[in-house]
């Protein structure tokens, strides 16, 4: 069976996106602390899901404009919301004093957010 050009145009983003999503899951399982896991989930996951949605957009493009509009809207929402949610969670985890891994060389956030935590919540 010889794939046509349309098949290749759908299959390449599909396989790339699935690979990135699998990499996200493996990174989520293997990384040592919560900030590293957020790094994996926030970047590779966003791009992987966007590529899969883009494959569906190309697949349904000959049938009309309904699915492409919704798909591009979904990609825009994905790029707007997932990094924001990951940033919110990372800030909350730092304020709640989640520990870094022992291999952390430098905590550049400590002069800023560490003081914020102590002054606002009275923690030591």
């Amino acid at each position, binding site marked *: *069976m010889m*794939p*046509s050009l349309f*098949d290749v145009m*759908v*299959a390449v983003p*599909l*396989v790339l*996106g*699935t*690979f990135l*999503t*699998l990499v*996200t*899951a*493996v990174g*989520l*399982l293997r990384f040592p602390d*919560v900030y590293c*896991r*957020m790094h994996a*989930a926030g970047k590779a*996951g*966003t791009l*992987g*899901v966007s590529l*899969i*949605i883009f*494959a*569906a957009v190309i*697949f*349904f493009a000959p*049938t009309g404009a*309904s*699915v492409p509009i*919704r*798909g591009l*809207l*979904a990609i825009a*929402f*994905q790029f707007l*919301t*997932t990094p*924001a*949610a*990951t940033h*919110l*969670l990372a*800030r*909350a*985890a730092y*304020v*709640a004093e*989640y520990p870094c891994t022992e291999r952390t060389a430098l905590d550049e956030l400590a002069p800023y957010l560490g003081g914020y935590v102590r002054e606002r919540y009275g923690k030591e």
Partner: protein
Amino acid sequence: MSPFLQAVCELCLAALLISVALTILRLIAGPRAADRAIALDTITMEFVGIICILCMVWGSDLYFDTVWILTLVGFLGSAAIARYLERGRLFR
């Protein structure tokens, strides 16, 4: 849908199911709440991908609305969990 594309879609569905299983392992094992929140966010993203591929396999755009709705709802859930972790309560 051609046989080539059918085979690629089924392979990708299998890989996405494997990644959902790996993420559920982190959801069970995660030491504290933020790890579990991240795992839930990732599971939402993987289900969005699975719904896209199932739409292509079935040749129907009936369920395509769930894709962008699930994205927004996942963001609301993560924002609520982050607010709870940072302040210790949801509302004043």
